[in-house]
């Protein structure tokens, strides 16, 4: 089934406490190569039918209005499947 993927990240200028906590744990366990960690969200929308322009517009709107909150997050990517595979 074709899947549309939406990636959402906390705004770059905001403190990301989850990422900060993981960065601390990585440093404590000897993984010192990383200057920072940020944690975001990935939405996978399984589509039952063709991916039309109308659906693309709907997903783009949902990504902005529902999957993310523009006060605190950015939609960094929307991946539409290229073929029916």
């Amino acid at each position, binding site marked *: 089934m074709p899947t549309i993927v939406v990636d959402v990240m906390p705004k770059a200028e905001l*403190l990301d*406490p989850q990422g*900060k906590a993981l960065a601390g744990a990585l440093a404590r366990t000897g993984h010192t190569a990383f200057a920072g960690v940020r944690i975001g969200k990935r939405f996978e929308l399984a589509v039952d039918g063709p991916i039309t322009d109308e659906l693309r517009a709907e997903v783009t709107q949902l990504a902005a209005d529902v999957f993310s909150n523009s006060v*605190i997050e950015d939609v960094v990517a929307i991946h539409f499947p290229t073929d029916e595979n």
Partner: protein
Amino acid sequence: MRIGVITFPGSLDDRDAQRAVRFAGAEPVALWHGSHDLEGVDALVLPGGFSYGDYLRCGAIAALSPIMTEVIDAANKGMPVLGICNGFQMLTEAHLLDGGLIRNDHGHFVRRDQVIRVEQTNTAWTGDYEVGQEITIPLKNAEGGFIASDDTLDRLEGEGRVVFRYVDVNPNGSLRDIAGISNARGNVVGLMPHPEHAIEPGFGPDTAVAMRSGVDGLAFFTSVIHSALVAQA
């Protein structure tokens, strides 16, 4: 006066809010998120809790509930609406209030009796306080960090819509120590601390006088009753 308290899946403090309404002298009306009926209430409380387990974002799925259509409509017509904690998060997600709430900067859940300063008394929910009055009510959250863009923060300050500020301790990294805000009209107010947990002697925060005797939150609920009386007069 009849004040509706909406229960969402995962609401925790709906019964406490109903009790606070009753203590203040109004009639609490239990409302259900799945309904489209506000049952003719005069004001609304969106209570604290963890609606939908904080999935997606705190308050985000609750903000899409059936009853929120009517809540948004009523709020835009001037009905007093108070959002406490998770209710505050819902009001931001529903775009009735500006800004957003993110995970506490220190990464931990926090529960403390919190001093906040009442900065504005011209809202539907704060008329019985004095400007500058410091009150102590419980705070308990993991995602209570209030954030907004600098422009939005400046506008909130300039328009007198920062209603409460944290005093002594900023418990969650909220920008400019903001604990609660209002909409432009002053009928919609949201805050992270819990006034409904400080309304009854024996169950509130400790005070210098006696353990658990703090009732500083009760005036939220008497304020809205008085503001309704003023509106009718």
